[in-house]
């Protein structure tokens, strides 16, 4: 155990030391603390930056992705100079520059039922900065089973949620959401968009809660859910209750070990945005180009939102946004062959499901969406 702070450290943390709620003893406590951050994306960026700056002695980072320039609108731990690098390495470089005193452990792997317990067990608390439902349920169950606090944050467009799930003292994520939403119902940020500042707001709140829990000060959001809306600039609080029927933290819990979370949610946990309608439906951009050369009258159905057409469009495509497909399918002829597309392929997969259950059969899903078309066929279109 590290018992003292050096003179350099006393100067570095002097604004903390001045407050009795932290003080020298609190700062030493932070130095001896460890936090595992799941995901180094929008939420993980501010969380890791502020926890490193605050002097948390050991920070673990879990991510398997590579920095992409479309991340930089919100993932401020990365930079233009680290595009193409592993996210965990890019993040570690930035954290070590910000605070060379701390230890940064990196895990360049997806967080799964196989490695989650092993990765989480040696940390004092866990930050949920993931971007999909399977990994959120996994993070929750791991924390319940290990008895560790789970600092939860989640975002979409202009809305954010924050809570502290600590099953020994209050409800867990499953108490609130016993069932995952039906697959495809809740769009990801890659499909629906997100205000770049939103994860900054929510992530700094998560970092604040983490610090309070580690120091044992203030009133953490245990048994409370904070709901933030950036457009209305409202913070609403909801009082939560432990669910007596909770399958993981209730008195009759039946989930005693980690399960298959992708099966439970019906969606993949990794590269969740690349979901397709299934290989039978897929057509590649190259194949579509060849088909259009043979059959220029082939019907193209674009299920993106109208404002996305301003960014990139395929000429001659009919636009019916996904949300209107069910009501407007009379405009389509089920006898004609049709290729459905969106930005990356998941909304079009959902549209194909809807049309298929209404009796449409002659459909193909453009694999990788208009982004794949831009990459492989028409480089005059931008990627977004």
């Amino acid at each position, binding site marked *: 155990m590290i018992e003292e702070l050096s003179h350099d450290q006393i100067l570095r943390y002097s604004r903390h030391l001045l407050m009795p709620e932290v003080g020298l003893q609190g700062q030493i406590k932070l130095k001896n603390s460890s936090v595992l951050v799941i*995901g180094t*994306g*929008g*939420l*993980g960026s501010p969380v890791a930056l502020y926890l490193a700056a605050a002097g948390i002695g050991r920070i673990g980072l879990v991510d398997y992705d590579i920095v992409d320039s479309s991340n930089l609108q919100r993932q401020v731990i990365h930079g233009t100079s680290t595009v193409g690098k592993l996210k965990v390495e890019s993040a570690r470089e930035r954290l070590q520059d910000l605070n060379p005193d701390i230890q940064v452990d990196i895990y360049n792997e997806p967080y799964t039922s196989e490695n989650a317990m092993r990765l989480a067990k040696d940390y004092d608390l866990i930050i*949920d*900065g*993931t*971007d*999909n*439902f399977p990994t*959120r349920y996994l993070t929750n169950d791991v924390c319940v089973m290990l008895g560790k606090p789970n600092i939860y*944050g*989640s*975002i*979409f*467009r202009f*809305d*954010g*949620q924050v809570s502290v799930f600590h099953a020994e003292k209050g*409800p867990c994520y499953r108490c*609130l*959401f016993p*069932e*995952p*939403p*039906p697959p495809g*119902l*809740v*769009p*990801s*940020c890659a499909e*629906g968009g*997100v205000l770049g500042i939103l*994860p900054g707001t929510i992530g700094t709140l998560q970092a604040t809660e983490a610090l309070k829990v580690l120091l044992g000060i203030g009133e953490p959001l245990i048994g409370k*859910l904070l*709901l933030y*809306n950036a457009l209305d600039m409202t913070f*609403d*609080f*909801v*009082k*939560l*209750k432990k*669910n007596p029927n909770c399958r993981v933290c209730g008195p009759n819990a039946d989930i005693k070990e980690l399960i298959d979370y992708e099966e439970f949610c019906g969606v993949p946990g990794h590269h969740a945005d690349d979901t397709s309608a299934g290989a039978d439906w897929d057509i590649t951009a190259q194949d579509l180009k060849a088909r259009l050369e043979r059959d220029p009258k082939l019907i193209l159905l674009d299920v993106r939102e109208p404002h996305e057409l301003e960014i990139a469009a395929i000429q001659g495509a009919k636009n019916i946004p996904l*949300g209107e497909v*069910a009501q407007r399918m009379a405009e389509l002829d089920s006898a004609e062959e049709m290729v459905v597309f969106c930005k990356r392929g998941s909304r079009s997969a959902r549209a194909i499901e809807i049309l298929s259950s209404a009796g449409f059969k002659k459909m193909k899903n453009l694999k990788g969406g208009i982004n794949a078309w831009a990459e492989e066929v028409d480089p005059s279109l931008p990627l977004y």
Partner: protein
Amino acid sequence: MNHIKLLFFATIRDRVGMKSLELDIPTDLTILQLKEKIGVDYPNLKESMKSVLITINREYAFDEAVIPLNAEIALFPPVSGG
């Protein structure tokens, strides 16, 4: 009859196209029955009702909770972005 106010958040607000709504419901209606009613009145919310978080006067409500008079009911969908 019981006159209540519904508040919509996040993706549910986008789907229904409004922030709030006032309506009359039978007294002694439970949250589960309200979810079913919403699914019928607003078919594009039917799927959302399977996983929505519902509060009565800013407190989490389980399915079997009976809706009190003049309650403010809020509907929060799960969001997963990060």
